[in-house]
C-alpha cells in the first residue's frame, strides 16, 4: 500500500440531520488505481458519505483531501472539476434525450457557434467518450429511452468519466458507484467489472458500494465496513471473507433492557392474519405469512426485498396480483386502506412527513384522523370528543406538545411519531403494521416507542414490524421472517431467551 499515492482521504466525517446523527465520525482513504468496497446495513451512512464527497450536502464536521489538497465541494460541479464523479443510485439520465445530449448536458456551449449547436461535432465527441470507456458500440444518437438499463449504466459511467477528466487529461479521477449492479444481469455485471478494471489500470480509483458481498469481494482491493455511522472495519481483500464482513457489519448483539425483553409475551395460537401464495407482479411472490394474536412479527430484508410492498398490500394500499389474504379466517380483498381499516388493519407509514401526518392540522385532529367516523353521532363529530381523546393520548403516551391545538409540525420527530401511534391505537385497529416506527426518532423516544409496542401486543393486538435496524427487529419480535429478492428465504423464532443471531439473518438477506 505504501508505495501507492494517496488520492483521496476523509477524516472523522460527521453529519447530522435534524438532530439524528447519520455519520458519527468515519474515515476513508483511497489510493490511486484501487477499487475500495464500502459496505454496511441500510442506514449505516454509506450513501450519506458519498453525497458529502460529491458535494450534494456538506458534512457537519471533519476534513477531506483530494490530490493532497483540502477538499470541500459546495456542489457536484466543483467535485467534478477536482476529478470526482458519481453514478447515483437513481439513474440521472434524461431519458427523452439522446446519449450524446446526455453526455454533454450542461456543456452544450462547447459545441455552439452563434448560439446554434453543432450536433455532428457533439456526436463525434460523444463517440470518442464512449470509445474511451469501451462502449463504442453504443450509438450516441440513440435516445436513452431506447436503451436497456445496463447500457444506460455504462452511459452514466461514461458521462462521469468524461466530466471528471474534462480539461486535464492526466488528472486521476475518483468515481463513486452507488449500488451500480442492482439493475444489471450477471453478464452485465462482469462487463462493468471489466470496465472498472480498465479505469483502475489507468490509475483512476473507484469507490464501490453494494449490498452484494460476493461482488464487493470480487472487484475491490480493500473493503471498508460502516455500522451506525461509524467505522466497523477496514481490511485488504486478501484478509476479507464473507463471514468476517457480516460480523463487522452486524457488530454488537442485542441488549436485553433496551427492547423490554422481560415484557415479551407469548403469542396466542389464533391466527389473525394469513397470506397464501401472495404476490405482486415483479416485486414479490409466493409469500405465505401467518400472524398470531398478540404477536410481533418482524420482517427483515434489504431495500428492494419486497418487505415494504407486502405491508402495502396487506394494509390495502396496493392490490396483489396473485394469492389470497385471510383476516381471522375470512378471505378479504381491499382496494383502499379504508377497507382494511374496517377489518381492523392499519399501517403506520415509513415516511412520516409524506405519508404519516397532515401538517396544517392540529395534534388533536391528527389523532382523530382514523376514527372521526367512529367518534361521530348521527354524523356529527363533537369537538369535545376529539379534544378529550387527544388529551387522553397526549397524557398516556407522554406526547410533548404545547397543547392539543398545536400544529403537529411544531412537535419534534419523536413526538410526531407518537401522535401517529396514538392515531393507530385510537382507531381500534387490531392488526397494526409498523413500517420503521423509530425512523428519525432519538434514542430516548425510541425506547418509549418500544415500550408502547410491548403494551399494544399485551392488549391482544398483533403487530407486523419492519424495523429500522436489524437489531431492533430481532429484539422486538416474537418471530422474524427474512426476505430476499421478493421471496421469503427464512423464518426464525425469536423468544426472549433465544434470539437468532444477526449474522444468521444477514446471510439469508444478501
Amino acid at each position: 500500500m505504501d508505495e501507492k499515492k494517496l488520492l483521496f482521504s476523509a477524516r472523522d466525517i460527521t453529519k447530522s440531520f435534524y438532530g439524528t446523527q447519520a455519520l458519527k465520525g468515519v474515515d476513508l482513504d483511497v489510493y490511486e488505481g484501487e477499487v475500495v468496497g464500502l459496505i454496511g446495513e441500510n442506514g449505516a451512512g454509506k450513501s450519506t458519505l458519498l453525497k458529502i464527497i460529491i458535494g450534494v450536502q456538506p458534512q457537519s464536521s471533519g476534513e477531506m483531501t483530494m490530490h493532497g489538497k483540502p477538499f470541500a465541494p459546495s456542489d457536484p460541479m466543483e467535485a467534478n472539476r477536482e476529478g470526482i464523479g458519481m453514478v447515483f443510485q437513481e439513474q440521472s439520465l434524461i431519458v427523452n434525450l439522446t446519449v450524446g445530449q446526455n453526455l454533454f448536458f450542461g456543456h452544450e456551449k462547447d459545441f455552439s457557434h452563434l448560439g446554434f449547436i453543432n450536433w455532428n461535432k457533439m456526436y463525434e465527441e460523444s463517440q470518442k467518450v464512449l470509445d474511451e470507456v469501451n462502449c463504442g458500440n453504443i450509438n450516441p444518437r440513440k435516445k436513452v429511452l431506447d436503451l436497456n438499463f445496463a447500457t444506460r449504466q455504462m452511459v452514466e459511467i461514461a458521462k462521469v468519466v468524461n466530466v471528471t477528466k474534462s480539461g486535464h487529461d492526466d488528472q486521476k479521477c475518483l468515481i463513486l458507484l452507488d449500488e451500480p449492479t442492482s439493475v444489471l444481469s450477471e453478464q452485465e455485471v462482469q462487463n462493468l467489472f471489466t470496465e472498472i478494471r480498465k479505469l483502475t489500470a489507468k490509475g483512476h480509483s473507484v469507490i464501490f458500494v453494494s449490498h452484494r458481498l460476493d461482488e464487493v469481494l470480487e472487484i475491490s482491493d480493500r473493503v471498508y465496513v460502516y455500522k451506525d455511522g461509524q467505522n466497523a472495519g477496514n481490511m485488504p481483500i486478501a484478509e476479507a471473507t464473507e463471514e468476517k464482513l457480516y460480523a463487522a457489519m452486524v457488530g454488537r448483539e442485542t441488549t436485553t433492557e433496551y427492547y423490554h425483553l422481560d415484557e415479551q409475551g407469548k403469542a396466542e395460537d389464533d391466527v389473525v392474519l394469513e397470506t397464501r401464495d401472495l404476490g405482486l407482479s415483479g416485486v414479490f411472490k409466493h409469500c405465505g405469512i401467518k400472524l398470531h394474536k398478540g404477536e410481533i412479527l418482524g420482517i427483515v430484508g434489504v431495500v428492494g426485498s419486497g418487505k415494504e410492498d407486502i405491508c402495502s398490500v396487506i394494509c390495502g394500499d396496493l392490490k396483489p396480483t396473485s394469492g389470497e389474504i385471510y383476516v381471522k379466517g375470512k378471505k378479504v380483498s381491499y382496494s383502499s386502506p379504508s377497507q382494511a381499516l374496517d377489518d381492523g388493519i392499519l399501517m403506520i407509514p415509513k415516511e412520516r412527513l409524506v405519508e404519516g401526518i397532515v401538517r396544517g392540522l392540529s395534534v388533536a385532529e391528527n389523532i382523530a384522523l382514523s376514527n372521526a367516523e367512529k367518534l361521530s353521532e348521527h354524523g356529527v363529530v363533537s369537538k369535545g370528543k376529539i379534544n378529550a381523546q387527544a388529551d387522553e393520548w397526549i397524557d398516556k403516551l407522554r406526547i410533548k406538545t404545547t397543547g392539543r391545538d398545536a400544529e403537529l409540525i411544531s412537535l419534534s420527530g419523536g413526538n410526531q411519531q407518537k401522535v401517529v401511534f396514538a392515531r393507530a391505537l385510537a382507531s381500534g385497529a387490531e392488526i397494526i403494521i409498523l413500517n420503521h416506527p423509530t425512523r428519525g426518532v432519538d434514542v430516548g423516544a425510541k425506547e418509549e416507542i418500544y415500550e408502547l409496542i410491548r403494551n399494544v401486543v399485551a392488549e391482544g393486538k398483533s403487530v407486523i414490524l419492519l424495523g429500522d435496524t436489524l437489531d431492533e427487529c430481532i429484539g422486538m419480535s416474537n418471530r422474524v421472517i427474512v426476505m430476499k429478492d421478493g421471496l421469503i428465504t427464512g423464518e426464525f423464532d425469536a423468544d426472549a431467551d433465544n434470539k437468532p443471531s444477526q449474522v444468521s439473518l444477514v446471510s439469508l438477506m444478501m
Partner: protein
Amino acid sequence: MENVSTTKEKRDWKKTLQQNYSFLVVILMIIIFTILEPSFLNSRNVTNLLSDSAPLMIMAAGMTPVLIMGSIDLSLGSMCSAANVLMLQLMLKMQPSIENPYIIFLLAMLLTLLFGAFGGFILGAIQVKLKVPSFIASLAFMSVWDSVALLISQMPVKIPKAMKMTTNWYKIQLGPIGLPLIIAVGLTLIYHFVMTRTAFGRGIFAIGGNERAARIAGIRVDRYKITVFVLNGVCAALGAMFLLVKANSSAPTVGEAFTLMTISAVVAGGTSLVGGSGSLVKSIVGVFIISIIKNGMNMVGVNVYWQKVVYGIIVLLAVTISTDRTSRSRIVK
C-alpha cells in the same frame, strides 16, 4: 430578548392581518366606492347588490370545499350555463302535459340539480379512477358543458308568461335582504357545519393537507372526493336556477364569467389554493368583496371588458397575500 418578542409580535400582527384581511377589504371597498359614487350606499343599490350576490354565493359554497381539498373546478361556469338552459327547456317540454306551473318548476329544478350531481359525479370519478388531476379534468369538462349548453339552445329564451309566477319568490324582501340571499347564506352555513363538524368535512381538510397520509390513515379519500364534486355540481346547477329566475330567461353563456368570479371570491375570502385550509364563512365575505367590486365598477362606469381584468388581478393579489411563502408547499393543480 426584547428584540425577539417584538419580531414575534410583528409576526403575530402580520398573521392576524393575513387571516382577517378580507373584512378590511370589504370596508375599504365600501369607502372607496362611496367616495367615487355617493349613490353607491343608497338603499336601492344596496338591495340590488345583496340580491345579486346570491347565485355567486351558492357557487362559492360548492367551490370552497373543492379548493380546501386541494382540487379545483374550472368547469363550474360552463356547468352553470348548461344547467341554466336545460332547466328552461325542461320547463317548456313539461308545459303541455302538466297543468300546475309550480309543479313544473319544481320538477325541472329537481332534474336540473340531478344533472348537476351527475356532472359532478363524472368529474370526480374521472379524477379518482383515472388519476387525472382536477385542473385538467375540469378544463376538459369546461369545453364539454359549454358545447352542451349551446346544443340545448343557442339563443336566450324567456320563461313563458304562463309560468312567470313561479319566479315571484325571488323578489321577496325582508328589509334590504332578499329571500335568495337568505337561502344562499343558509345553505352556505349548513355546508359550513358539515365541513367543520362531521367526519366527512374533517376528512376533506385532511385530504387537502396531505392526501397520501389521509389515505393511509384509512379515510375514504375516493368517496369523499367524488362527494365534494357532486355537491359542487349541485351548487352550480342551483346557481343556474337562481340566474334563470333572476333574469326570467335562459342564456347559454350565462355562467361563463362565474368560474373566475367564484374562484376569485373563495380565494379573496381566504381559502388557500394549496388546500388544507379555508372556510365557507370566509367565502361569504369573499363573495361580498367580489359583489361590491362588480357593483361598484358598474356604478362608477367601468367598462365590462375591463372588469374581467380586475377579477384576474384579484385572484393573483389574494393568492399572493394569503400564501405563506415560508412553507414549502406549492400550488400544484
